[in-house]
């Protein structure tokens, strides 16, 4: 190596070092980009795949789910346990137990896709914390729905007298009214009951407007 | 050299000459328009008999080398050889400039056999070759090709882990992905956890 190339190389090397320091200095002058998580949160995208939840039928205040069990069969990790019962005065079966083993759930979304009656969707809940394993191993989705149902009853002080007739008629209505009516009240429901240690601020942005993202389109067939 | 390898050689020569020089992409299927010929599930197999690992001349010879449509199968050439020919096939492919892609097994429990599949790729030509052989489930043993393709070392160890197929002459047939004390072969069809 001749002296000339050596000097040239040293010069280039030194220049590259200075360039690097200039770049980091420039970056240092820019504002920070991190989100200080417990203090601020990002909005969840509409299609966020949290754990599943049952959809409330806005007309009846009951679950849309009729416990057909297709989701159970679609689940790759056998995380779901669904049971249905025929309620008095109703023609079809309705869900009476919907348990998710969140410890094995891989959030793949197969159950939502498999549902023929669009009765389940993803929740936007990502802050799931508990001191008790069973809160996840036996995550009671149906109980959450019931809580939601109670809220629904409060906003609808006089439940329609003949729910049996109204229910099937209301099923095809688009999902948007659900969010419109339930979103103000949904916040405490979204925050899981099993998270006593968690501050209330850490609950995600409550139930975004379009809670049920274009559900009919996303089925494979 | 037995007929299988002869055919293999001839077809390689033709294929490599055809494709190695051409710039890509070329999709297979030109040689075998129907492209559906497959020997896997039909039970046809190489001249294998359980007591000798060599070719049994009494059995009817299947056509051991087939051209396959790439669009249908994902590979161009499907060769079925006897267990003792895998090394010769590997050497042949090595000379032709092929690289080893993977070695794996399939447990055909119904036929009481294990299939070992060697995938080869060509680094410059759009040409993929699958070499298969079958060994009896009771005594699954094959010569190793790791002296030819050192990359086979790991693949063979993995296959041994999963299927219990022994590769004789392998330099380091230790448990690989499974725990050191694992005495089971999970990909055998009769394995129940």
């Amino acid at each position: 190596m001749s002296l000339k190339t050596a000097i040239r190389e040293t010069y280039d090397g030194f220049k590259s070092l200075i360039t690097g320091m200039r770049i980091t200095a420039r970056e240092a002058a820019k504002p920070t980009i991190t989100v200080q998580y417990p203090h601020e949160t990002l909005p969840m995208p509409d299609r966020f795949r949290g754990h599943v939840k049952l959809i409330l039928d806005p007309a009846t205040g009951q679950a849309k789910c009729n416990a057909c069990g297709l989701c159970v069969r679609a689940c790759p990790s056998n995380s779901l346990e669904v049971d249905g019962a025929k309620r008095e005065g109703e023609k079809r079966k309705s869900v009476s137990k919907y348990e998710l083993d969140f410890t094995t759930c891989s959030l793949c979304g197969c159950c939502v896709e498999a549902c023929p009656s669009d009765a389940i969707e993803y929740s936007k809940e990502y802050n799931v914390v508990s001191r008790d394993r069973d809160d996840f191993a036996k995550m009671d989705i149906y109980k959450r729905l019931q809580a939601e149902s109670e809220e629904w009853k409060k906003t609808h002080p006089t439940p329609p007298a003949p729910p049996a007739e109204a229910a099937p008629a209301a099923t095809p209505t688009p999902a948007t009214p659900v969010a419109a009516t339930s979103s103000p009240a949904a916040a405490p429901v979204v925050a899981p009951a099993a998270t006593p240690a968690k501050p209330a601020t850490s609950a995600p942005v409550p139930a975004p407007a379009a809670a049920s993202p274009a559900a009919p389109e996303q089925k494979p067939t | 050299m037995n007929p299988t390898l002869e055919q293999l050689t001839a077809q390689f020569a033709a294929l490599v000459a055809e494709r190695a020089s051409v710039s890509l992409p070329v999709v297979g299927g030109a040689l075998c328009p129907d492209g559906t010929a497959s020997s896997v599930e039909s039970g046809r197999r190489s001249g294998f008999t359980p007591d000798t690992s060599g070719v049994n001349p009494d059995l009817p010879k299947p056509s051991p080398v087939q051209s396959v449509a790439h669009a249908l199968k994902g590979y161009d050439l499907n060769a079925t050889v006897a267990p003792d020919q895998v090394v010769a096939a590997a050497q042949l492919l090595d000379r032709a400039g092929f690289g080893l892609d993977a070695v794996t097994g399939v447990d055909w429990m119904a036929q009481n056999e294990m299939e070992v599949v060697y995938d080869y790729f060509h680094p410059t030509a759009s040409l993929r070759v699958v070499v298969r052989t079958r060994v009896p489930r009771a005594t699954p043993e094959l010569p190793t090709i790791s002296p030819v393709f050192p990359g086979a070392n790991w693949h063979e160890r993995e296959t041994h882990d999963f299927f219990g197929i022994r590769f004789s002459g392998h330099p380091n047939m230790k448990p690989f992905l499974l725990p050191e004390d694992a005495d089971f072969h999970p990909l055998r069809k009769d394995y129940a956890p």
Partner: protein
Amino acid sequence: MIAEKGLITSGHASDGTHETFTLNLGPQHPAAHGVLRVLMTMDGEWIQRAEPIIGYIHRMHEKMGENRSWAKFLPNTSRIDYLSAMNYTHAYVGAVERALKIEVPERAEYARVITSELNRISSHMVWWGALLLDLGGFTPILYAFDDREKILDLLEGLCGARLTYCYYRFGGLYNDVDDAFLKGTRDFVAHMKPRLTMYRELVTDNIILRKRLTDIGPISADMCRRYGATGPVIRGAGVAYDVRTVEPYSVYPKLKFKIPTYPQADSMARYLVRMDEMEQSLSIIEQALDLIPAGPFMAPKVPRVIKPPAGDYCYAVEAARGRFMVRIVSDGKEIPYRVKLRAPSFSNLSLYEEASKGMILPDALAMMGSLDLVIPDIDR
């Protein structure tokens, strides 16, 4: 060299003048990026033999494939190589589609290409940051993650997951690409180009990095061939082997892109290949965004119960780390008979023992970084 009774097993090197000791690098070591263990026989800081020992996070995905239906295996494919999950799902979905002879709509294919290439960029960014971390530079990984975050946000908005997307379905996609995603992707491409320039100025041109990678860890083309190393490793050895052109799949034949190759076959070549690939991916994404047609995103007739005809089918894709191939063997039933996952990192690592012979420890780690290993991909 350094011999202490009971602690350092001392042996004699072949020439009898050097004493060796064994260094257990891993399973927990900062440079292993996961649970990789390398058993090194050292002569001082010189490596005489480095034997990778793997299997610490082996999950037996292939067996999982044999005891669930074809569709239920889909979530698994995102979890083999968590950094290029899109590509991996693509290979599996492609294999099943090949078996079923399903024609995928063009819109879905373009969406697959866009998401796959985004995934490739995000994967390369993790590699870039992690390599620099191995080399002792701490800042680049955070810059890379800043940009990667944008990709993850895009993909999360699209399919609801940030890492384990599970976005492709047999015959199409899980849900349609929306305008927000397409616009966001365009913005990202515009954002990313100056960032790549910044990457180059900050790191690639840096004299320290060049000294650390140039002429370090040579892996020749022939060695790649014999070990089956693919992806940036073989392209860094001067061979333009890229599944996207060698075995074209999806709509790649309709897109124009270059296969970056560098003949030096050293760590720097592999580094530069990946840096160039990010640019090429951006250009692919731009073209695909221009070309993506309207239309359905699912094939019209996909059977509800998947039962591929008997036979074996391969489908290979160019994942971020190299050739990823799925070989499915079907016996015509609802459940796969055999799913073989040919992982690129597995072959790329298998040459490490030969390649690292005689290297000094930091160089060997730099070379390991340039191989871009993802341990779950190796262990599967």
